[in-house]
Each structure stands twice: as C-alpha cells, then as structure tokens.
C-alpha cells in the first residue's frame, strides 16, 4: 500500500468538505478520483499532501504515518502533486521551474538542470525551456507543473485536473504522457472531469459526493452506477466518453 | 583685508532637536555679527565687540560655517571631517547632543583641531584625555547643586519639601541629570520619594501624571524635552493637579516653543538657566535685544550657552593671533574671562586641564508674567520667589 488514507475528515467550520473518506492506492496503480464540483476531491488531495491538516483521520505514505508531516517532508518521501489552479514560479524560466523540482534528488544545480531539461523534453515543453513561466497559458502551466513534479522523481504523483483546457487531440497526447509516467513505475492518482481520461487511464475509480465516497470500482462499473449518473454524469454523459 | 577666520558650527538643524539647533544657530550668528560689525554698548564691556573683526588677526572677520548633524552621530562626525578638511575651519563648536559631540570631537582630536562644546553635558566627554576638547557649559552636578541649595532655602523659608518626585525622560540627557540630582539630593538630605522614567516623544503622559496625582508630592522636578514638556503641562492642567513647587530642568521647558504654547498655564514654574536676564545695559540684556530682533524670541538657556561658547572661542582665536590650531588651543587653555563679560550667567570662563569650564554655573529662574526671571542665587536675582506654584 503506497498511499493509505483512513477516515479522513476535513472540516471548514461546520462544513465537512471531506467526510470520513478512506482511500488506499497500491504501488503501481492509477486511481481515478471523480465527483461533482465541490465534492471534496481537491481538499482530499490537500490532506494527502499535507497542504491542509486533517481534522481527523490518518494518512500514511510508503509505510510511514505522515499525518502530521508538512508538505515538504511528504515530497521528500516521494509524494508529488500538481495544483488545480496552477502555481508555477512566475518570475522564473520554464527550465528553472523544473530545476527546483529536480534539486530534491540532485545535489548540484548543474545536475538538477540536466534532469530538468530531460523532463521538460519528455512532457513536451522542450522547445520553451528558456521562456518565462508567465508566458505560458493555463494548460502550459499545468504541463509545467507535471514536469516540475516529475523532476522531483516521485513515487506517486497526484494530478488535479491537469488536463482541463486541452483540446481532444491534446488530451490524447496527455493520456499517453501519463501512461509513460506510469510506465516508469510512478503511482498515479488523477482527478479529472473529462471522462475519456478516467476511462482510458484509471484502473480503479473512487467517486466522491459531498465529501463522502459514494462508489468505487472499475471505470465501467462506476460510470454505469445510477448513483454516479445522478450525482455527477448527468443524462447526456455519453457525449464525454 | 585679511582672509576671514572660519569657525565650524555643528548643530542639529534637522531631526527631533532641530528647534534647539536652529535657535542656537541664530544666537551664534548674533555673536558673529557683533564681532564683525560691532556694537557700541557691548564694546564698553567686551573688547571684541568694537567691530571690525578680530583685532588679533589684523581685523579678520569671522565666517561661520554651519553643518547639520541630523541628530545622528554618523552625520555629526562626517560633517566635522568636512568642516576640518574641506572648509579648513580654525576650530569647531557643537554639537548639542552629547553622543554626537563625542563622535565629532574625536575627529577634531585626531586632526588636532580645537573643539568646543557649549551645551553637551555628558560627564564622560571631558574624561577622555582629549587635548583639543573644551566645554563651557555647566554639567549636571552644577544643576543639581543649584536645585539643592534653592530647595533648602525654600524649606528654611517655610515651604514644604517633604516629598520630591523626579520625572525624567529616558535618553542620555534625562537619565544622567536625574541620577546626578538623586545623588546630590541624597547627600543633602532631600527626600526623593518618586522617580518616573518615561520614553521621550510620548504620545500620552496621562498615566504618569496620574501617578503623580496619586502620590501628590510637594515638589516635582521634570527633566524633559520640549514635546514631552508640552504634554506634561497640558495633561497636568487637564487632570487638574499641581505640586506646590514645580521645577523644570531647562531643556523642553525653556524652549521658546514651549513658552509660546504653554506659557499662560505654567505661571510660577521654577527652572534653571544659564541665561539670567540681567539689568538693562548688562551683556545678557544687550545680547537679548539683538537676539530678539533676529529670532523673535528671548534668549534662553540653550541659545545663550551656544552664544557664550562661541564668544569664548572667538576670544581665544583673537588672543592666539593666528588660525594655527595649536595656538588657538593654547589660547583656550589660557582663557580667563570675568563674570561681567558673560552673556550667560556663568561666573566666568576658565578651563581646567580636562577642558571643563570651572566657572560655569546655573541660576534658578521662575516664570513670572510669562517671562523667566532670575530668583536664585540672591546675588543675581532680579525678582522675588513667588510660591506656591500657581499654574493655570
């Protein structure tokens, strides 16, 4: 079990954004996490990464209880993430952004930079390494976040709507990219509203609604679950698949 | 016409003490004007006042070069160096705040140039073994003795001085004066029952006045700069409390700004001053007229001390007959000015080998009808003591 979250609750005042959720991810898995807007997916991510302290429950990663660890300690253990609202280092070049990630496992700036170049190439940002990060559009930033996370050579990668805003063709490329990342032995948890992504990538899917898990199973199983259709997919779900 | 003699004057012309610095500046300008252009009346008493510059240097005029110490020791020292090396002044005078005098005079010492302080009172200034440093002003112990004798005299005359409160601001000036007064009073058996230290430039002094009001001492001695002096005077009136003798140690309470602002509410305030007023025709009285015409206010403790320091320096340069620093130094050492030539209320000027003026002294004054008049020592008094303190 690489990631194991037990009975995680996150409350903002009286409102429970995540309500007693237990999710575990095996090493080598691709887990899809879906659910309507405001279901608590991002909040749950933040609890896993330590960006938000849990109200109750526990999180363990790679066998260690990390519930009380700050985000940077979890990152050092190999937990990487992207943000739904991109948080790139705007004053830096694309290359430097990725270098920050690479410095986690590389001692010198020179080595880190080489690693960063490598990763940028792989995610398809090889042609803009010297551009300032702020000149990228939202999708570009999200891609840069993936590169940055990969450069830190994580065991697990949490992707929060990393493909939002891509055209169908680009989505297909991105799916390929995630497959390749997965192929390198990185465990992936992915939040996405584009069902095509979930269906073609995820081995298992967990569905959240109002902070609670309402379904889990293979993509096929959950997309035909009437509860999921009712709460999330809506009548015309076919269009997205 | 010989080249003018340059004298460097370093004062706080900006920053929190700028008010004092600017008044002193005007007083010294009055002094230079008297020496350069003469004043018939003064010439009867002071030889240098005949006009036509310094006779000892063939009638060289005095040129004042002012510099602003900005209230910082660094600026004071930088300006001292500039005056010495660029302006090639013959001697320096300044710098009001003791800390700045300390750093500025160190430069003069290294360059071998006389430095005279007319108002810095910190004791350690003359303890440094400097050879080029002179001080004309009385220091804290002189003030303390004056108060002590004055109070003992009042006690003998039937005033209550059973409980004395000391209120002082917490910078160098207030702390040092307060501790010297406390020492002296201790020796003289005057009981200090309450000591209140506060930070200068307060935004509010009500708590302090309330503390006073509660203990209700007979005598309060304030050691405060202008801004706080004003606040105390205002607040005491607001809270309607007054001691039977209110003594203000100079500084803030002597500031013309304080008088302008609060004069009518502190009638009967006792103060000490180097300025003793004096009868018409006396040196202080004449200088006061000249100064009033220029500055619009009366001479006071700070301005008169600056003026006196300048006059001493001018006299020494004149006697040196040269701008050679060593000769001026020697002339300063030999200074011996009598009391009647004094603009300030000193007993004269004569330096000991540390450079301190051994004839420096203070008079005690009282605010009567909006003006400070000398009430102590008897020999100099121009009016009688009126007690208890009237206030507003």
């Amino acid at each position, binding site marked *: 079990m690489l990631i194991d979250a037990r009975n995680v609750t996150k409350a903002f005042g009286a409102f429970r954004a995540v309500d007693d959720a237990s999710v575990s991810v095996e090493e080598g898995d691709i887990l899809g996490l879906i659910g309507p807007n405001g279901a608590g997916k991002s909040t749950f991510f933040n609890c896993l990464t330590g960006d938000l302290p849990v109200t109750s429950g526990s999180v363990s990663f790679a066998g260690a209880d990390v519930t009380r660890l700050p985000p940077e300690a979890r990152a050092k253990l190999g937990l990487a993430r992207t943000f739904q609202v991109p948080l790139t280092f705007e004053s830096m070049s694309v290359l430097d952004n990725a270098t920050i990630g690479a410095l986690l496992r590389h001692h010198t700036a020179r080595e880190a930079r080489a690693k960063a170049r490598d990763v940028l190439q792989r995610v398809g940002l090889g042609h803009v390494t010297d551009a300032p990060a702020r000149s990228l559009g939202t999708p570009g930033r999200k891609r840069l976040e993936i590169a940055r996370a990969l450069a830190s050579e994580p065991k697990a990668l949490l992707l929060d709507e990393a493909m939002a805003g891509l055209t169908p063709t680009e989505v297909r490329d991105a799916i390929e990219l995630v497959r390749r990342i997965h192929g390198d032995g990185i465990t992936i948890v992915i939040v996405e509203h584009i069902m095509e992504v979930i269906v073609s990538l995820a081995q298992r899917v967990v569905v959240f609604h109002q902070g609670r898990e309402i379904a889990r199973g293979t993509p096929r199983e959950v997309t035909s679950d009437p509860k999921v259709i009712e709460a999330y997919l809506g009548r015309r779900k076919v269009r997205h698949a | 016409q010989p080249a003018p003699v340059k004298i460097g004057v370093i004062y706080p012309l*900006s*920053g*929190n003490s*700028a*008010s004092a*610095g*600017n008044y002193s500046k005007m007083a010294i300008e009055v002094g230079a004007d008297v020496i350069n252009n003469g004043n018939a009346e003064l010439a009867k008493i002071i030889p240098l006042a005949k006009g036509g510059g310094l006779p000892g240097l063939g009638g060289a005029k005095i040129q004042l070069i002012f510099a602003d110490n900005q209230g910082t020791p660094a600026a004071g020292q930088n300006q001292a160096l500039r005056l010495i090396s660029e302006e090639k002044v013959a001697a320096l005078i300044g710098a009001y705040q003791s800390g700045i005098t300390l750093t500025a005079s160190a430069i003069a010492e290294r360059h071998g140039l006389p430095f005279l302080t007319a108002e810095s009172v910190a004791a350690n200034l003359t303890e440094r073994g400097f050879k080029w440093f002179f001080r004309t002003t009385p220091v804290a112990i002189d003030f303390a003795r004056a108060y002590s004798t004055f109070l003992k005299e009042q006690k003998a005359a039937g005033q209550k001085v059973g409980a004395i409160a000391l209120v002082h601001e*917490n910078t160098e000036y207030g702390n040092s004066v307060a501790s010297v007064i406390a020492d002296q009073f201790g020796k003289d058996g005057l009981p200090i029952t309450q000591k*209140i*230290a*506060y*930070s200068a*430039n*307060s*935004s*509010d*002094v*009500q*708590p*302090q006045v*309330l*503390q006073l*009001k*509660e203990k209700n001492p007979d005598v309060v001695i304030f050691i405060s700069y*202008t*801004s706080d002096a*004003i*606040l105390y005077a*205002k607040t005491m*009136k*607001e*809270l*309607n409390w007054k001691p039977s003798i209110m003594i203000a140690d100079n500084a803030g309470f002597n*500031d*013309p*700004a*304080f008088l*302008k*602002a*609060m004069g009518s*509410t502190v009638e009967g305030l006792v103060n000490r001053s180097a300025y003793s007023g004096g009868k018409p025709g006396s040196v202080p009285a004449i200088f006061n007229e000249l100064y009033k015409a220029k500055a619009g206010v009366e001479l006071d403790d700070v301005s008169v001390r600056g003026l006196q320091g300048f006059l001493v320096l001018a006299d020494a340069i004149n006697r040196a007959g040269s701008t050679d620093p060593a000769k001026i130094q020697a002339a300063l050492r030999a200074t011996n000015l009598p009391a009647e030539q004094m603009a300030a209320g000193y007993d004269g000027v004569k330096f000991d080998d540390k450079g301190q003026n051994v004839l420096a002294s203070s008079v005690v004054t009282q605010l009567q009808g909006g003006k400070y008049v000398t009430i102590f020592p008897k020999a100099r008094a121009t009016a009688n003591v009126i007690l208890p303190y009237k206030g507003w």
Partner: protein
Amino acid sequence: MSITLVQVIVSGLLLGAVYALFSSGLTLIWGMMNVVNFAHGDFVMLGMYAAVMIWTALGGGPFAAVPVAAMLIATLGIVSYFLLVRHIMRGPMLAQILGTFGLALFLRYSAFWYFGADFKTLPDTIVGGSFVLGGVRFEGSRVLAGGMGLAITLALHLILTRTAIGSRMLAVSEDATAAQLMGIRPQRMQALAWAMAGAATGIAGALIANFFYTSPTVGETLAIIAFVTVSFGGFGSVLGALVAGLIIGVVESLSAYLIGPVYKDVVVYILFVLVLWFRPQGLMGKA
C-alpha cells in the same frame, strides 16, 4: 477598583479611539491597494498643521479645522496617488517602501522648511476644558477626538463592508484588471480610496492637534503607533484597527501606570508579537 485606575482605563480608551482614527487611513490604503504608506504619519502631521494654521491665521476651532484638514489631506492623498502611488504600484512591494519613504521625507521637511522646527500647540480653550463624571475627569478635546475616532472608523467600516462602492473598491484592490471587466474604473476607485484615507487622516490630525504638540517630525512618533495598530488589528480591516487601537490604548495606559512608562512600549510590542504568533493575520485580518 480605585478611581485612578478607572481614570487610567478611560484615558487609555480615549487614546485608543484616537489611535484607531489615525490608523484607519493607513489600513484603508492597505486594504484598498496593498500599499503600506510610510508617509502616513506625515499625512497626520500635515493635518495637524492645518488645524494649527486655521487657528493662528483665522482663529477657527475644530469645527472649522476638521473639514478643512479633511479636504486638504484628501487632496494630498489624491495628488500623491496620481503622481506617485499609481506608478509605484507597477513595481514590487519594495517600491512602495521606497516611494512612500521618499514622500515621507519630502513632506516632513517641506513642513519643516515652511513652518520651521518649532513645536506648535493649540490653546486648550478651543475645545472647552474638561468635565468630571463619576469622579473620572474627561477632557473635552480628547472626548471629541475619541468620539469622532469611533464614529469615523465605524463609518469607514460600514462603507467598506456594506456598500456597493466599498465592494468595488475592494474588487479593485484585489484585481484591478478584473475590476475593469466589471466596468469599474480602477484609478477612480483608488483615487477615491486615497481621498477617503486622506480625509480620515486629516480629521485625525486636526483633532489630535487639540491636545498634542505639532512639529514637523511628530509624524514619526505617530506612524509607528499606526503601523502597530494596523497590523495588530489586521491589515485592511478598519474594525480591526478600532479594536486594536482600543486595546493598545488601554494596555499602554495601564502598563505605564502600573509598571512604568518606560516599559509601556515593551508591553505593547510583546503583546503585538504574541498576537501575531497566534493570529498571523492580525485580530481581524483575512487569512
């Protein structure tokens, strides 16, 4: 409780309301445009001079001085905004410190040059003396200042949180471009913010002048108090400034009375650091 202690607390509260008043302009400028105005104390100082001038030149009391000072400092705010602040906002946060510090020196010493270094005070007959209530003495000028302080800070608070114009100003402060998409003219709102802050500051100055000395450097003393009050209460929160001002006023008064005046600042600063330790955004600031 002894009557003196009550007196101490009352005077602390009145002082605190005044702190709140002259801090409200600072917090407003911060809240509206993320600018810390290092010249704030000097704005207060100019407001004080306005009152002094109106008294010495025209013999007018606070009822004349307050509106005039408000208008003068509001104008100064607008001018500073258009000539300086608008431009430094393009730069990093440090540019604000640089620019407003320069402005502070410029204003402080322009006043010095024009008014001289002298301390000025208003005759305390202007706001009729003092009165006693239940053994506690109230001074007219302080009650007036404290009362106006309360009223004005509350009014500012309501304007910011309850009105459309307040909401627009806040919108501009957060994202001027997005505000333009709402049809809001950012510069107009920001100039308005500077005018409002200036007016509040001018009023503060005119009222303080009734019981405080006026000098070109007085702003320095006041500015540090304002900075502490504003961060104590939470940047951008006028209500926070009010609460913080009252707390600081009372704490200062009490510690000066009970521990000793030298330590009152020590107590206030320690309290301030403690507050930030437990509430890094200040008492009422937004996280």
